[in-house]
């Protein structure tokens, strides 16, 4: 087991602070079209350091902040916290539990945190090095992109293998 929980607050359609706990085995996330399932996947990629607004389906990074709805005003910031179980020591940290978080304010100010302490994106990437987890990892398959490996040109596929090797 590795992922413990994710908390979304003001991230895309998750206006309210929402928590998902993950256990061993298979967790299925279900619901009608447009209810927010893929937004949870975007949240994982965003908190792990995704820099491209486009790959999160937006035009600008501010697009990940809850934009309001008929009944709600827009949020002032987006925050995601992702907590890992590190008892197997896979992450480069001495802690048994590691929480990565990211917050983005409307002003454009943004911050990464590792177990509550401000850090740089580089520190998050270092933490995940060699785990097969991370923004470009083969371990997150986005909607509609399952055939990407087959379509990618032969050199494009290399990256997946190098990541794994």
């Amino acid at each position, binding site marked *: 087991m590795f992922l413990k929980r994710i908390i979304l607050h003001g991230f895309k359609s998750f206006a309210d602070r929402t928590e998902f706990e993950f256990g061993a085995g298979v967790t299925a996330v279900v*619901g009608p079209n447009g209810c927010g399932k893929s937004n949870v996947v975007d949240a*994982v990629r965003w908190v792990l350091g995704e820099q491209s607004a486009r790959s999160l389906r937006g035009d600008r990074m501010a697009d990940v902040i809850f934009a309001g709805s008929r009944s709600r005003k827009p949020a002032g910031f987006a925050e995601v916290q992702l907590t890992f179980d590190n008892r197997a020591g896979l992450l480069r940290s001495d802690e048994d539990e590691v929480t990565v978080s990211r917050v983005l304010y409307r002003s454009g100010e943004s911050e990464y945190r590792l177990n509550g302490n401000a850090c740089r994106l580089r520190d998050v990437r270092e933490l995940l090095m060699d785990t097969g987890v991370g923004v470009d990892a083969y371990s997150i398959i986005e909607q509609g992109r399952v055939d990407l490996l087959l379509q990618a040109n032969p050199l494009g596929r290399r990256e997946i293998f190098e990541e794994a*090797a």
Partner: protein
Amino acid sequence: SRTRFAEAFEQIRAQFQEMFRKLFGGGKADVLLEDPANPLECGIEIIARPPGKEPQSISLLSGGEKTLTTVALLMGVFKSRPSPFAILDEVDAALDEANIERFNSVLQEFLSHSQFVVITHSKRTMACADVLYGVTMEEPGVSKRMSVRFEERVETPIVA
């Protein structure tokens, strides 16, 4: 570094071939270095032949066959280099009922190595899950996590 890549590649190759046979109930697949003399830089070629069919370019495969081939490759990578978790967003969208069964039984096989989060509209995939989260928008535009009831089940998963 060259040997390390070559070893990892051989392992992925073996696992891919096995996963392909499992998911297709037979057939043959391979993953090859386009230029073995230049293993650290050359492209990677994928060969996939479903059972009883003539080997052809993978581009000619059907939508569902492409999905299964990719899943086989990914599971091959996982087995040789276990990733702690995988998030699969509607990966079963192109699969027919029988292949959704096979896909889910392959996931089951990996549970000692990995943790899976799957997003799906398939009742079969839901039924095979250990935990089910429902997401709704009772209040338009605002996502909310909630419990999910699932009738017609013999063994009920933990509903979170």
